[in-house]
């Protein structure tokens, strides 16, 4: 499963984001006996977001394991299994429940290799359905990827398209270190063209989704799509925005971002996680302390989640995270020199 594949040689088929994840897991389960899936209700129930679907019927309960409601213990079992030769993919039902497993993720998975002087690796993959917009309120709507991205020893990715989520999950299974995948719930039903069969998308590499000259928008996950929609609007007003899909937030890809900022001289970060102390702060600081600083012609702007738990009321819920209109207005103000 290791040889790199040129996706241009593969047939593509349209599928949804969640189907793409399932496809990746199907390929992995079918070709590597070390791969097992673990999570709550991923068996006959098919997974809370119907991602695993009917995989249990194909591979059996020993490969697609329903766990008790034990996030801490379950994540730890995944760590122990990865440490000793399996390739577990542990699904959290909601990213918010990562909090219950923080001990095993942060103190164990991220650190065992280092603490043991490099003698071992922990090739565990953990998947987190994340984000707001489903009316699930504060404890089921968070974007906590920045918490985990803060921890050395972990890799954290946020694929935004069906093509990328399949390829990056397959890449994660090749990675000897812990990979945390944050999947925005509202992306599960979005569709895209996906190559059939095995291929990988690199971890640690951002992608320019739309080229532009007046401003660089760096976005993650669902905000990539909102930023692209905003860029269309901005184009009508004569503003040419370049949109970068960061894809991986630990490690961030500096080259792609810096090259873009040098070209456009303006930077806006758009992300759903809370703006304060979030991923945008990290990107902004990275740019401000780099050679790209000399090319900035305007302050760096961050558009992120507001400083409140996600509310239940749908209008408040929308108002708590960046939306297309807000992105358009803020970027326009920035480019017109009003900020």
């Amino acid at each position, binding site marked *: 499963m290791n040889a790199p594949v040129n996706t241009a040689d593969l047939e593509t088929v349209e599928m949804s984001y969640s189907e793409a994840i399932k496809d990746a897991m199907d390929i992995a389960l079918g070709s590597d006996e070390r791969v097992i899936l673990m999570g709550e209700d991923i068996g006959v129930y098919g997974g809370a977001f119907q991602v695993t679907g009917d995989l249990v019927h194909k591979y059996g309960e020993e490969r697609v394991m329903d766990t008790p409601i034990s996030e801490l213990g379950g994540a730890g079992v995944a760590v122990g299994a990865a440490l000793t030769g399996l390739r577990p993919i542990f699904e959290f039902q909601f990213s918010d429940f990562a909090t219950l497993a923080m001990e095993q993720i942060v103190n164990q998975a991220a650190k065992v290799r280092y603490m043991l002087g490099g003698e071992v690796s922990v090739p565990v993959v953990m998947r987190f359905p994340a984000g707001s917009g489903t009316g699930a309120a504060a404890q089921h709507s968070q974007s906590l990827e920045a918490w985990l991205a803060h921890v050395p020893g972990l890799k954290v990715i946020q694929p935004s398209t069906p093509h990328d989520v399949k390829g990056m999950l397959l890449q994660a299974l090749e990675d000897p270190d812990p990979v945390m995948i944050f999947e925005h719930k509202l992306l599960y039903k979005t569709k895209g063209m996906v190559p059939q069969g095995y291929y990988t998308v690199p971890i640690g590499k951002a992608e320019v989704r739309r080229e532009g000259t007046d401003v660089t928008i760096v976005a993650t996950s669902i905000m990539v799509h909102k930023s692209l929609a905003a860029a269309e609007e901005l184009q009508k007003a004569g503003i040419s925005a370049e949109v970068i899909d960061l894809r991986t937030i630990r490690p961030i890809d500096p080259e792609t971002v810096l090259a873009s900022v040098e070209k456009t*001289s303006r930077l806006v970060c758009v992300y759903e996680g809370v703006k304060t102390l979030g991923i945008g702060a990290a990107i902004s600081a990275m740019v401000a302390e780099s050679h790209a600083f*000399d*090319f*900035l*012609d*305007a302050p760096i702007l961050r558009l992120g989640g507001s400083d409140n738990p996600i509310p239940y009321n749908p209008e408040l819920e929308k108002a708590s995270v960046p939306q297309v209109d807000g992105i358009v207005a803020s970027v326009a103000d920035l480019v017109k*020199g*009003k*900020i």
Partner: protein
Amino acid sequence: MPIEVILPKVDMDMSSGTIADWHKSEGETVEEGEALFDIETDKATMEVESPGTGTLHFVTAKQGDEVPIGQAVAWIFADGEEVVAPAGATPPQATSAPEQKPDEVAPAVQTEAQPTLTNGTNGTRATPLARRVAKKLGIDLSAVSGSGPRGRITRADVEAAPKQADVASPAAQVINVGGKTGAEKTAQELGLSYSTVPVNKMRSVIASRLTESKSTVPHFYLNADVELDALMTMRAQMNSALEGSGAKKISVNDLLIKACAAALKAVPEANASWDGDTIVKYDDAHISVAVSIDGGLVTPVVRSAQSKDIQTISAEIADLAERAKSGKLSSKEYQGGSFSLSNLGMFGVKSFNAIINPPESMILAVGQGTKQFVPDEQGNPKLATVMSVSLSCDHRVVDGALGAVWLKKFKELVENPAAMMLN
């Protein structure tokens, strides 16, 4: 260990100071707390006390030297201590006063919140890209006007700058006052007899601020004649009431300040400052009063003058003027004015047009009150004491009509002074 004597920071926005005078010299004994040397700042000369007792050695800065704050200028050795040059006992990188570049001068009189920056930006707001392009094109950023918020210069502004220079007068580019006019060179060439005086801090600050004011603020002037008789009568009554109390006499100038404050309260739109993308409207009338001092001019501020009674104003002015002359004003006392008053009447000046003190929007220039014949209500001549005033206005904030309304109010208050005493 010898005690280090440093050049202390004694003023806001101070990055260096000039040694005005040493009270003690190499080898002399000093006592802790004794006056050691004087520092010349923009507006005052400050005395620096000795930090310890002992003998003064390795005095590395001399009178007239400009020294960065925090740098050692001498050491004090205790009795019996071995007198060995400590590390750093080499003359500081002092630049002697005549070569002072005005853009290094602390803009102490400016009320705008632009601190002296020691980072090479010279207080100019420009984006990194603008700086880069300016450097590449050899454009002086201080000559570029910024279109961004708070006057920020962007790349577009720099790229447009050469075109700006074509339109504006060449003189507009020279806000940087360091420029030589060639006067000395010409005098030398022609063999004229002359002497030179180094431009000191205060002089250079006046030069740069007022050049900037004259060349960037769109001035216009409104003139009026005001009859002083009623005011002078009231003044005489006030001072007669104060007779024997030991209180200071009220002057005409004190009353004019009160009138200005009251007029600003009545016409608040004129009590404002231009600030790039906003206009700052002050809630109170802070009157800067021009005081002539040795070698220059200071404008201490009477804060919230509209709510102070005439005696308070009078005492404050006297105190501020005295301290201004002896160089003992703190920088807070000559910043933050919203209006200026300048009175040259005592010199026999009939009238004049004053230059606005930025960021204030108006300055009232007052001339001498002289006896003249004026028509009364019946058209018959009557003798009155008439004073000519000229109001300079910043057209960005104060339009002609607004200035006129203010001036009218001022004249009303002076000619009917009882109204000034009301709230």
